[in-house]
Every structure is written in C-alpha cells, then in structure tokens.
C-alpha cells in the first residue's frame, strides 16, 4: 500500500512514518506539513491511504477531505477525540487514531484499511470505464472478484456498512454503500425507491401504493422516490 502523511507537526509525521516502516507492505511516498502541498501531490499521483491530521492551520483535515476529487482511504490522526463523530460522516475515512498512537492501535488501523481496500467494488476495466458499457459489475468477496451481470440483479439493500445484492440465484454481502454502488449502475435500469433500497425496475412484478414486488421481495417505496420510479414505467393510463 502506498501512503502519504499530512501533519504540520514533524514529531507526529515521524511517529506515523516509523509505524508505517515497521508495517509490511506500507510504503510512505511523501510526508507533508501542509495540506495544500499534499493536495497538489495527489492531483499528480494517486495513493491508497492518507494519514491525515485534522487540526492544521489555515486548511484543516476536513477541508482536505472535501477538496479531494478522487479520494483515497483516509486515516485521521488527531488529538481531538470529540471529532470522531464528524469524521465518520465521510465515507472514505476508515479510521480515527488518537495521539499518541501505539503500534498496536496502528496495526488495527492497517487491518481496517486492508479490509476497506479489499472490499471495494472494483470495475472490470483498469481505466475506470463506466461499467454499464459492459453490462456487468465485479464485486470483491473474500479476495475473490465475482462478476455480476446487471440483468441478474433484482435489488440492493443497505445493511449498515454493507450492502446486500440480491440476484435471482443468490445474495452477496459487500462492504460498501448504496451511494457508491448506485454510481456504478445503469440509470436506465436501476432506481432508488427508498433510502435503503435500489431496485432493478425491469424485474418489477407489481406496485402498490408504498411498495413494489420484485420476485418474492416486497420493497418499500418512499414518498419522495415514487415520482422517479413512476417516470421509468411504461404506464398505460
């Protein structure tokens, strides 16, 4: 894993750097005392992980996260315990280390990063082409990439930090969010009917006021999602 360290304190950078060097496969590409310099670097080169201090002058860690176009996994390194809740509002923040960090706690963080990277949904194109051109999606289950054709998918349900992809044959539990998978799905086939559900509307059997039947699954339709769903239907009035 390639990483960078962003912290205005040299001692803090040295601590994280040492822990990285004591960790197998963790390679520190650069260290930055300024978040802005780190952003310039990331505009030219991608990394897997950023170890990021929140409390920096002029440009905070949260400013940094919001500025990134394509964000790597972020591990916050900070003295501010109370900011943890805010931190996890950002999908790409995978852990939160409170200074002074111990090697044991750092190792746990590395495990979280590894899990997050391994469970990430991976496009089958190395060049990040939209999956819909291929009519399929690769998901990572226990280090195995499994191909799912879009027309096999019935629905997707959010389950906390995971999603459940229900197909005609079986279900797949993947560590990601509904928002992320929605971006990979063709909009002409999939629609979000509820904050916890995306459905393949070509699989709809029938619709009642506030629910839709897909195979044997009853899926709720929220009031706000109903107009969008109805737009997709070839409705005989």
């Amino acid at each position: 894993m390639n990483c960078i360290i962003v912290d205005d304190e040299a001692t803090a950078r040295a601590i994280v750097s040492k822990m990285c060097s004591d960790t197998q496969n963790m390679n520190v590409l650069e260290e930055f005392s300024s978040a802005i310099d780190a952003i310039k670097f990331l505009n030219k080169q991608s990394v897997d992980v950023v170890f990021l201090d929140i409390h920096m002058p002029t440009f905070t860690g949260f400013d940094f996260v919001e500025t990134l176009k394509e964000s790597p996994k972020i591990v916050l390194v900070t003295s501010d315990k109370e900011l943890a809740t805010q931190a996890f509002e950002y999908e790409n923040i995978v852990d939160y280390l409170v200074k002074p960090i111990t090697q044991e706690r750092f190792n746990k963080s590395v495990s979280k990063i590894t899990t997050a990277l391994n469970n990430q949904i991976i496009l089958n194109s190395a060049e990040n082409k939209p999956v819909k051109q291929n009519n399929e999606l690769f998901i990572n289950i226990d280090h195995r990439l499994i191909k799912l054709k879009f027309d096999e998918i019935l629905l997707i349900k959010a389950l906390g930090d995971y999603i459940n992809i229900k197909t005609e044959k079986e279900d797949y539990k993947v560590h990601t969010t509904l928002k992320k998978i929605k971006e990979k799905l063709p909009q002409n086939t999939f629609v979000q009917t509820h904050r916890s559900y995306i459905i393949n509307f070509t699989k709809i059997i029938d619709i009642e006021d506030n629910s839709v039947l897909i195979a044997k699954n009853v899926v709720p339709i929220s009031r706000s999602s109903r107009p969008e769903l109805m737009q997709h239907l070839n409705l005989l009035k």
Partner: protein
Amino acid sequence: MTTEKPNLNYIKELAGGDSSFEQKFLDIVKNEFPVEKKEYLDCLNRRDNNATAEIVHKLKHKLNILGLQDGYRLAVGYEEELKCGDYKLKDDFLSVLNVIDNYILTI
C-alpha cells in the same frame, strides 16, 4: 505546579531498539519544541486567543510524547479556556514548558 517529570518511555517503545530512529526523533523534538515555545510566547504576548490556543494544541502533543500526563490534561483545559479568552492557566502551563526546556538539555 507539577512534580511530574518527563520521560522517554513512549519514544523508546516506538523506537523498539532502533537507536538511530530514537536519536532522529529526539532531534526533531529538540528542534521543534523551542520554536513552538517561542511561537506560544509570541502569541501570548499579543493576546491572540485563537493563535495561542492553536499553538497550545500543538504543544500538548509533545507533553504526551514525553509522558507528561498531568501537563497534557492541563493543556487540554487551557486550550479550551484560551478560546474563550481565559488565560488563568498560563503560569501553570509555562512551568510545564520550562520543565521540558530543562529536560531536553539533558537528552
């Protein structure tokens, strides 16, 4: 205010016997601390509440690294009070900084 003495326990544990890292780290502390202390005193003299709180925030990490748990707790409270313009802990905090000043001359 405090009888607490700095120590290198955290740094030694981090170094795990790597004496070159230990020395490099101590050099960073020796270089960074006086600069941060001066910046703190400058901010204090200007009565710049936010800037003083910022540099106390930075300094408190050094207290942690050097095993000054009471000093760290003092710094946490002081940082919060500074944001409200309250400087009543400044003498106690300065005495902690002076303890570190003396200590880093010995390492």
